[in-house]
């Protein structure tokens, strides 16, 4: 416990309401986004594994295995995100079990040595918490008030009658991706009301006023139209000095974080479009022969690989003609929904195939 006092973690419970994206920070601290409570938790997962070697890791039917451990059918779980412990290479999955009243977020650990499945306890663990978004505006007093079936909410007495009322906010924000770079947690999200593109920066260790600051990101499409859209996935780039982001409407946009003040408007450079009727799902960078590359998982295409040198020299897209932006290679690897670095030698992919989900190590040398 003391080893993490420098990060401000204290024994407590990461009381997560809904499983969201996860990402590792410094010294094996895992960040978990809670989309129900608009919070992010930093948890010491106390990973028990030894330091991993350069081996790959594959596991077929990971959805069936996790469901079996959680005591439900594979259709009853959703794997929301994937992270690999940087030292042990144990695999962490952010899993939502069930869908309605019985829905329960679970952090699952898969042992890199034997593929065994356990859940990571989130009570009585070293934890720190930060609010992700601006609290609802002071003038937003809207609450959805219902009569709960259980013991939620508060007891209210009118005259001689006493009953329970549950008041919950109507405005919410969903975290779509998060990443840690050098003392800052970066968080992208999607509002259930306004259509905007915000990247939040929260200093870590979290401070009392840990709401952090947000940047509003615009991008220009084809030199003619300036627009904003929620960021779907992003990777820190250039040592964290810039961000490469993909959007619900599929462009890849580069913008610099340097010199941006809180509340500033950033205008990004659109460097690629990934095609029509397609959603980017996840994005990582990896190294091959000393060069940095970007990998993008897509809903409609295979895995797209982009050479970062091409991004650096790509002029902003100005003409709405094909090809659109930087050269890219589309790998014939379909159904990949999540990506994580597995040491230097591999990328771990969550891949849907044959109606099931599998963990596959992709050798970076052959990507």
């Amino acid at each position: 416990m003391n080893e993490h006092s420098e990060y401000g973690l204290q024994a407590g419970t990461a009381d997560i309401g809904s499983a969201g994206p996860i990402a590792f920070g410094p010294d094996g601290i895992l960040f978990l986004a809670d989309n129900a409570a608009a919070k992010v938790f930093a948890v010491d997962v106390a990973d028990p594994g030894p330091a991993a070697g350069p081996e790959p890791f594959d596991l077929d039917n990971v959805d069936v295995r996790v469901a079996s451990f959680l005591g439900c059918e594979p259709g009853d779980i959703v794997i929301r995100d994937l992270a690999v412990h940087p030292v042990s290479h144990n695999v962490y999955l952010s899993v939502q079990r069930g869908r309605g009243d019985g829905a329960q977020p679970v952090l699952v650990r898969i042992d890199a040595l034997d593929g065994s499945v356990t859940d990571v306890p989130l009570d009585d663990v070293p934890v720190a918490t930060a609010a992700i978004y601006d609290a609802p505006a002071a003038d937003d007093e809207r609450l959805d008030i219902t009569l709960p079936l259980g013991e939620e909410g508060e007891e209210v007495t009118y005259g001689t009658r006493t009953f329970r009322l549950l008041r919950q906010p109507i405005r919410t924000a969903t975290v779509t991706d998060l990443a840690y770079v050098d003392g800052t947690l970066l968080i992208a999200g999607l509002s259930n009301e306004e259509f905007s593109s915000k990247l939040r920066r929260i200093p870590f260790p979290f401070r009392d006023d840990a709401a952090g600051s947000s940047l509003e990101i615009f991008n220009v499409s084809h030199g003619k139209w300036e627009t904003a859209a929620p960021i779907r996935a992003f990777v820190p780039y250039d040592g964290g000095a810039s961000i490469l982001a993909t959007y619900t409407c599929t462009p890849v946009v580069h913008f610099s974080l340097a010199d941006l003040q809180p509340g500033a408007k950033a205008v990004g450079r659109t460097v690629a479009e990934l095609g029509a009727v397609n959603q980017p799902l996840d994005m990582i960078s990896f190294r091959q022969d000393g060069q940095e590359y970007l990998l993008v998982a897509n809903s409609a295409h295979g895995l797209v690989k982009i050479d970062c040198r091409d991004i650096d020299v790509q002029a902003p897209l100005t003409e709405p003609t094909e090809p659109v932006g930087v050269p890219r290679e589309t790998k014939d690897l379909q159904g990949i929904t999540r990506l994580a670095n597995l040491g230097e030698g591999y990328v771990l992919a969550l891949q849907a195939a044959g109606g099931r989900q599998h963990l596959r190590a992709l050798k970076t040398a052959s990507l």
Partner: protein
Amino acid sequence: MTRLSWSRLDGTDCIRLAGLAPGADVQVRPAAAAAAAGIPAAGLPPMGGRLAADGADACFVPRFGFVDGTAYAVTVDGRTAGVLRRPRPDRPATAQVLAIYPAADEVPRNLLRCYVWFSAPMSEGHAAAHVWLADDAGTPLPGALLPTEHELWDAGRRRLTVLLDPARIKRGLAGHRAAGYPLQAGQPVRLVVDAGFRDAAGTPLQAGAERRYAVGPDERRRVDPAEWALAVPAAGGTEPLRVTFDRPLDHGLLARCLHVTGPGGSRVDGTPQPGPADRSWQLEPRAPWAAGPHRLVIDPIVEDLAGNSARRVFDRDLGRPEDDPRASGFITVSFQAR
């Protein structure tokens, strides 16, 4: 011979094993999981849980609760001891669709967002299959709504936000060039919620619901409060302030982006209410209006049906300087109560 039954231990559902040999290894797995993957059940992790002694019996207490309708296979020392299925309660359908927004009869071709209000908390994971846009004959318009892993609910899971695919609305993007607008001016559409949408208990809706919209031309202007008409109430009375817009505004944002301050600058307490078709808004004060200067205060993030806000248009044509974004501060419209 081990006998299995559903039971309870310390307030928790469990599987009771009677006649279990001391030290036996008990494992429980959802029965259909292995078959789904075509692999031997023994190759799957057993369900997390613990074995607790209760009198002469042993009880398997799961780490995560049993799921209604799911069958569980129990092995003792590697041999199947039996399969137990959790009953699925037969619940009547009670949840309904209360309202679908926009409330306007006509939407612009570049409509961005709809909302569906349900009468009860709902389950996640059903929106993609059970909410869609259809043409006037009821034929689904594939690809019109944004397919997203992230369903956008309020915290109570009663209001669902549905986005049309912005890549098809924004000019210049690949989606727009390849597939065009999701809507066509002059061709009515219906937003359909079918009865298969599940409530929080997993029960379908009482009935499906839909709302029909005429489709008009694009709306590409910034929301401009200077275009709004105010019906100013008399000082000393409690008639509402009425604000009429030049176009319908977004249901969700309208409900929180407007308020009124009085002569001292403090906020006027009262009951705000959107008007028919979200084309107007009123504030009925709790106390009589004070005489003197008032301000209608507008958060510039307020949007119309096409996602244009008071600050910026949805997709700005850089060749139109009149569409340059305005500063992010609150906008005020002054009026005098006399």
